[in-house]
């Protein structure tokens, strides 16, 4: 006799009631206390509900104020006081070491970002969240107009000081103190480039993000570009957590404990972490845009910025259907190394090369660590795992090497993360530079399907612990209001997966 057959219909009643609640994806009721007949409900929550319905504007405001305070505080310390002119990187700390990221790596990051934005040929820019001016001070001198906003007054103060110290005319620059979702007095279609760099991770939730992007789109003129940079990748969140916890783990830590630490880091995430699918879906649903390019970070540094973050370019103009169809080859079939690719470009000179699923050397070992930690019999210690990884053979390709190989042989190289693989693998398209017909045309990249999904599905929920508590209380009250006392669950637990039947309840 299966326990399913014995399950009383009252449990179905409770589960059905819970299933009607907008915050519930699935529910299961078990009686784990046969003495008193107390019921426990297990619920898989709907993330969209957690993020959107359980927050209010007051909550949002408090979160934003906290971030503002964090940035103002960073400017009150020694690091900011002794910062190099034009290069105030105070507060940029490594998640691994909790110490400042080395200056040469930050310079690499700044210069790659400036190069990317400059390639869009901006003339009239709106930068939302300009911070201490790492980009502004380098890009504004080449532009006709540069409007920059930031919500932290101490930070804008430091920027003004730097501009005065550098001297010269900054007539084209206008600084506005305001939060990212404030577009007052910004005229529709008045900018050819809008930059939102390293800001999205501090937004309180997905609705705020959508609001800012919609405001940015209104301010953008046809033919213009919306550049959203340094976005933290949601598909790679677990890989990131694995990478950091591995680094910080004492050698004797068991793999089981390491796994708990990784899970905790993911769940306690206070920043907004976004999947490329969000931008693909947003672009898809907006007539003004012809799609979203999801680009890996350029640069030779090896840190959390190049490993787990990406840049997005949304173009206002043209349409999705004008994109070129390309025949893609699966990298995992032959797993070519960079030497093979170089030789192929040099000897065969193909018109184009289109490869999907290239293993990403930047995060290959993090991926191996993750597999070991997740495996069914994960025995051993963090120290043993680290030693294993040190000597493991790798087959992934470093993105910068593809760019070099392309450059040396006369090919334009484009990489994409639109496929959203949680392994960090990427797709590459190389085209011969003298093939004029394809310059500037966008191609159809392999991408995760987003049709029918809410945008909220493609981000995490910052500070979700509070919302989870709220949802639990809400659901318990909801049950109490709609069920007779003996059926209302006494406890409610949020889970990722429903538990299997453990005990059948007595009648």
């Amino acid at each position, binding site marked *: 006799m299966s326990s399913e057959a014995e399950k009383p219909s009252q449990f179905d009643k409770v589960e059905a009631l819970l299933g009607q609640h907008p915050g519930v994806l699935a529910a299961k009721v078990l009686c784990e206390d046969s003495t008193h007949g107390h019921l426990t409900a297990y619920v898989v929550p709907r993330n969209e509900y957690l993020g959107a319905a359980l927050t209010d504007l007051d909550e949002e405001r408090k979160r934003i104020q*906290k971030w503002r*305070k*964090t940035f103002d*505080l960073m400017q*009150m310390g020694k690091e900011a006081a002794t910062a190099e002119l034009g290069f105030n990187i105070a507060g940029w700390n490594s998640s691994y070491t909790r110490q400042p990221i080395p200056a040469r790596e930050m310079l690499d990051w700044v210069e790659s970002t400036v190069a990317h934005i400059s390639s869009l040929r901006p003339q009239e820019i709106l930068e939302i969240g300009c911070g201490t001016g790492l980009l502004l001070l380098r890009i504004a001198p080449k532009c006709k107009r540069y409007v920059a906003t930031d919500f932290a007054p101490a930070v804008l103060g430091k920027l003004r000081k730097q501009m005065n110290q550098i001297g010269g005319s900054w007539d084209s620059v206008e600084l506005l103190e305001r939060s990212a979702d404030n577009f007052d007095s910004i005229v529709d279609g008045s900018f050819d480039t809008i930059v939102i760099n390293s800001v999205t991770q501090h937004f309180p939730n997905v609705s705020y993000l959508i609001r800012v992007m919609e405001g940015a789109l209104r301010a953008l003129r046809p033919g213009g570009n919306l550049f959203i940079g340094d976005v933290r990748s949601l598909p790679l969140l677990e890989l990131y957590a694995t990478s950091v916890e591995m680094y910080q783990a004492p050698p004797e830590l068991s793999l089981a404990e390491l796994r708990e630490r990784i899970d905790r880091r993911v769940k306690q995430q206070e920043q907004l972490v976004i999947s490329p699918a969000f931008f693909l879906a947003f672009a898809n649903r907006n007539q003004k845009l012809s799609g979203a390019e999801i680009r890996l970070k350029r640069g030779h540094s090896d840190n959390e910025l190049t490993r787990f973050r990406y840049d997005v370019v949304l173009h206002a103009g043209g349409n999705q259907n004008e994109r070129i169809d390309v025949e893609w080859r699966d990298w995992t079939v032959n797993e070519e190394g960079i030497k093979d690719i170089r030789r192929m470009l040099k000897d065969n000179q193909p018109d184009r090369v289109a490869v999907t699923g290239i293993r990403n050397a930047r995060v290959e070992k993090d991926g191996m660590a993750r597999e070991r930690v997740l495996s069914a019999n994960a025995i051993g210690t963090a120290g043993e795992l680290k030693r294993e990884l040190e000597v493991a053979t790798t087959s992934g390709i470093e993105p910068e090497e593809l760019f070099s190989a392309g450059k040396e042989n006369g090919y334009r190289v484009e990489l994409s993360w639109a496929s959203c693989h949680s392994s960090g693998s990427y797709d590459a398209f190389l085209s011969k530079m003298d093939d004029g017909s394809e310059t500037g045309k966008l191609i159809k990249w392999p991408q995760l399907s987003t049709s029918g999904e809410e945008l909220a599905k493609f981000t995490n929920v910052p500070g979700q*612990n509070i919302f989870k508590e709220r949802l639990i209380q809400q659901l318990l009250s909801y049950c109490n209001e709609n069920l007779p006392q003996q059926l209302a669950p006494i406890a409610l637990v949020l889970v990722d997966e429903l538990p299997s039947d453990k005990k059948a309840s007595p009648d």
Partner: protein
Amino acid sequence: MDNKIAIRQFVRNLLAQKSDDKPLSDDSSLLISGRLDSVDAVEIVVMLEEKFGVDFAEIGFDQTMVDSVDSIDSTIRSAQTLKEK
């Protein structure tokens, strides 16, 4: 007035939210050790401003000023001494 009692309670609460039940002594490092993060640092700062009237704009801010129960306590005392001047 022993502010440390209130400070310890506040810090224990922040640690509890991170499921950190390791021992806490008055000189245990909180931020530099990574037990608490920058979001928690802001909570501590806001608490000091609201409950103890500390004005960080006046005295400047450095992680070390709030890195332990002891340093939080001496930050409060320096800020109060400044006020009395």
